[in-house]
């Protein structure tokens, strides 16, 4: 296997980092050595941190002319053999959508960190939002796979950025760290362990770079290795040759792209349960809101109320079977979000139990007291 243990880039110990700094360090720990970006609040600290640290660890950093160019160059670098990343926020993430579809189609491992701010449009640039959930899944044309992760702490900005690179390399897919401004700018204790597990893309000389492989994920060569690669965003056969009118090629390719993620979702999807076993009302939360929710749930448990929480760490692929299972046990499901119900809508797809969305889009985080108030009304 292509897993290996490596020393962390930072000495083991506790740090006091912001979420953005942690994401940058997580990338470096995972082996990211190419970064291209364009300034945007509230994500710019990632780029600035990388600009300093790449000089120490030996990476290539460039500030491009826009987000389209940033993501394009990241894809180019990935095919040149790099673990490559960019970071942005909503407006830049919108500009990147065509490139995300391209990365999915060409099965290019890349990581995009989206520090979500309050939209739509320029919205409130310094304020928190969580409105990019659907954009992360459906922002580019066609059906294509992505993995999106929602970190809730500075520790997870670090750990999940490492995980994002591992997943990108393992499944040859764009992975999006869908963080919120409130996590990106939070400072917390962050622990670095001595050794971490890293997955590096599989290579196999002469193998079809777009063939099915054993598990739907083909090995990936790099430019300059004499493989005479054909990489294209047009529909293509196992060797990358354009086949733009063959229904069989198109059907096989789109199905494989989808299935390589869906069939491996047990391995990809992560979640956490809190007091969910015997709860009548279950909160389904992710990102920063899960911290408010857990605070509220614990306070109410101390009052003897039967409330629980499930935290989605992975947003895409969606935890469909988990939701089915939760829906069969709980009386009510409460879904607080910093958007107009983007995950609540997904939850409704998989269970017909009573689902109560709570949507706050005022540029502020959802306070635990708000959640407690809502839960009291539901009990």
């Amino acid at each position, binding site marked *: 296997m292509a897993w290996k243990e490596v020393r962390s880039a930072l000495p083991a110990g506790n740090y006091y980092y912001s979420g953005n700094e942690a994401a940058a360090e997580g990338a470096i720990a995972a082996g990211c050595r*190419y970064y291209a970006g364009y300034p945007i609040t509230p994500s710019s600290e990632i780029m600035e941190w990388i600009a300093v640290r790449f000089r120490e660890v030996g990476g290539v950093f460039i500030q491009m002319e826009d987000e389209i160019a940033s993501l394009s160059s990241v894809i180019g670098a990935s095919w*040149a053999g790099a673990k490559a990343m960019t970071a942005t926020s909503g407006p830049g993430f919108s500009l990147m959508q065509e490139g995300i579809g391209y990365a999915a189609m060409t099965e290019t491992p890349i990581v995009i960190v989206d520090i979500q701010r309050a939209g739509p449009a320029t919205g409130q640039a310094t304020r928190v939002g969580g409105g990019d959930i659907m954009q992360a899944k459906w922002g580019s044309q066609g059906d294509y796979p992505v993995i999106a992760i929602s970190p809730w702490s500075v520790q997870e900005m670090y750990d999940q950025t490492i995980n994002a690179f591992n997943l990108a390399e393992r499944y040859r897919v764009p992975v999006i760290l869908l963080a919120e401004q409130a996590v990106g700018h939070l400072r917390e204790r962050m622990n670095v362990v001595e050794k971490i597990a890293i997955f590096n893309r599989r290579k196999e000389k002469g193998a079809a770079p777009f063939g099915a492989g054993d598990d739907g994920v083909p090995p990936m060569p790099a430019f300059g290795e004499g493989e005479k690669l054909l990489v294209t965003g047009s529909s293509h056969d196992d060797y990358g040759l354009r086949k733009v009118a063959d229904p069989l090629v198109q059907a096989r390719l789109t199905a494989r792209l989808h299935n390589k993620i869906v069939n491996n979702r047990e391995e990809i999807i992560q979640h956490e349960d809190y007091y969910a076993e015997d709860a009548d009302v279950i909160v389904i939360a992710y990102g920063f809101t899960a911290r408010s929710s857990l605070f509220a749930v614990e306070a109410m448990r101390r009052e003897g109320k039967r409330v629980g929480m499930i935290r989605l760490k992975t947003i895409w692929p969606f935890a469909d079977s988990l939701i089915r299972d939760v829906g069969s046990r709980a009386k009510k499901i409460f879904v607080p979000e910093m958007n107009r119900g983007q995950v609540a809508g997904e939850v409704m797809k998989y269970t017909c139990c009573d689902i109560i969305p709570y949507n706050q889009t005022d540029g502020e985080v959802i306070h635990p007291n708000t959640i407690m108030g809502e839960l009291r009304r539901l009990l």
Partner: protein
Amino acid sequence: MAGDMEEYLRPGVRTPFCPGCADRILVRLILRAIAELKIDIDRMLFVSGIGCAAWIPSPHFNADTLHTLHGRAIAFATGAKLFNPELITMVVSGDGDLAAIGGNHLIHAARRNTDLTVICVNNMVYGMTGGQVSPATPMGIFTSTTVEGNRERPFDLCKLVAAAGAEYVARYSVSQPDTLVSSIKRGLETPGFSFIEVISPCHIQFGRRNRLDTAAETLRFFAGKCLMKDEAEGLSPEELRDKIITGEFSNGRNQAD
């Protein structure tokens, strides 16, 4: 093997170009330049955008090729080249791709003087999508979106890119094969950003709407407009109207003339 042009063509590939398309000629001329320089083609990376011209390297060239998004070839190439400077990186794309949707990447790569050789295949029209006007379409020309003749001024792409800071800038036509091949060689040998605008006529989308019925006629029409830079010297603006001036416009940042 280095130097063998036939080896540089990907075996078993059927060309997608219309019969008579000048891009077919350009496929050969680019490879001839590489062959004459005896570059091991496995050290090269060809990046293209979307359009007819973007098909020149992909799939024809038997090398690493990256066929990207419309307008973004230079940005993709930047990432690959910066991460692996060993890759001799050439971008081949159309006038619409490089100068309209991708115009910003073009001037910024020139400003950075990124070590790329960019071949801008200028047929003065959007060939692939059915002959719409491009930012390189001359005034008065009929296209599917300029039904009364183009009223907008075209870019002088060489001036634009030279002003943005490119190291090497030249314009030649496929009807000047030998000078064009030498120019591509100069571009490849020049460290930094090289830009070669190649006049490569499209008889299907450009020619027919402008009373040029065959490939040969279209080619002749453009060939007749091309003047070498020194021939153009001393001519009046009136005499230069409609002419295409070919030659080198910058070779080495400080020698631009």
